[in-house]
């Protein structure tokens, strides 16, 4: 399978952005941007048969897992940008912050019991890192050596709140099943940075 490139990722989001700005997608869309290099590197380790659990910001994960861009466009236009699912590539997501980690653990427990070589990869933002449900999941994977990795995509924002306002200087040292990378999101939390008129009601956020 041909790997998707950095430029193709950026261009995909740009096209969706233009359509959203033309009010063609009357649904919340969380755009990815600024983390192309980090994700391309991480996805080199993720095998076709592995599971990926994504978040509300799922477009890059889906494309890098080998998802069909046309299928993703269909999902986005029908309002499923924040719940992208594709069984053909073992791809699931949740738009609840820290909603997926516990479920990812269950899949990992099952595939370990089956002596399968597959892995589970669960992506989350640093907002979800703040959540107790994530802590439960990490401890279980760490303690039971489950084939599951958590990837924290740290943009220093929980929705729009920086870390200094949240747990301030507290940093948790996670076990080895947790990876983390830092980046600066090139889009706002949701929308494109432009206020768009959707049938008389405006939606959007500013950068």
């Amino acid at each position: 399978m041909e790997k998707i490139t950095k430029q193709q990722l950026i261009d995909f989001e740009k096209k969706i952005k233009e359509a959203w700005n033309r009010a063609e997608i009357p649904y919340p869309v969380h755009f990815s941007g600024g983390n192309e290099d980090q994700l391309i590197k991480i996805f080199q380790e993720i095998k076709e048969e592995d599971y990926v659990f994504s978040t509300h910001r799922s477009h890059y994960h889906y494309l890098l897992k080998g998802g069909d861009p046309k299928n993703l466009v269909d999902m986005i236009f029908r309002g499923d940008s924040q719940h992208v699912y594709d069984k053909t590539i073992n791809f699931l997501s949740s738009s609840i912050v820290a909603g997926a980690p516990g479920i990812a653990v269950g899949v990992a427990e099952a595939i370990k019991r089956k002596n399968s070589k597959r892995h589970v990869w669960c992506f989350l933002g640093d907002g979800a890192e703040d959540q107790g449900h994530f802590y439960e999941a990490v401890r279980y994977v760490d303690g039971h050596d489950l084939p599951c990795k958590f990837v924290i995509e740290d943009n220093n924002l929980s929705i729009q709140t920086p870390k200094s306002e949240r747990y301030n200087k507290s940093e948790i040292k996670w076990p080895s099943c947790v990876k983390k990378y830092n980046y600066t999101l090139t889009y706002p939390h949701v929308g494109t940075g432009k206020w768009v008129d959707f049938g008389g009601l405006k939606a959007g956020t500013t950068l």
Partner: protein
Amino acid sequence: MKYGKAVKKSMEMLAQDERVIFVGYSIAYNGKAYGTLKDVPREKILESPLAENLMTGLGIGMSLEGFLPVVFFERHDFLLDASDAIVNHLDKIESISKNQFKTPVIIRAVVGHDKPLDPGAQHLQDFTKAFREMVNFPIYEPSTSKRVLDIYKSLLNTSGPAMVVERKSLYNQEI
């Protein structure tokens, strides 16, 4: 047959199915889910930390890989910590995935009893009506031993989630 015995018999019936795994905390130890898992083989039990949302997530995730998890809550009060997993995920994954992923998980939810010891306000609540408002999957409330046996038997064929509300106050009754 006493209601509690019917529940125990149902668990032993479920345990014969290779897909079934019992998930919960303190269910392999003293108490054994009010004695209902006493004669279920240890390898059919996944003893979990006391972390209800994780415990339910374990059930959901295992169901995605072909297991039929039976997740045990000894009191409704403790369901609330798992309500994100139950309401936002267990109940929604099939519909938001456009039927690609199915999550057959049986939630056993026991309503506490005030006898012989009265545990008070945080151990006796009954959230059956509230969960009926919050989820779309079936919630069963068997009130006789026969219904207990019938419901658990039928759930062997479930393709999606279900909750069974058991009442501790009925466990010792011949009904």
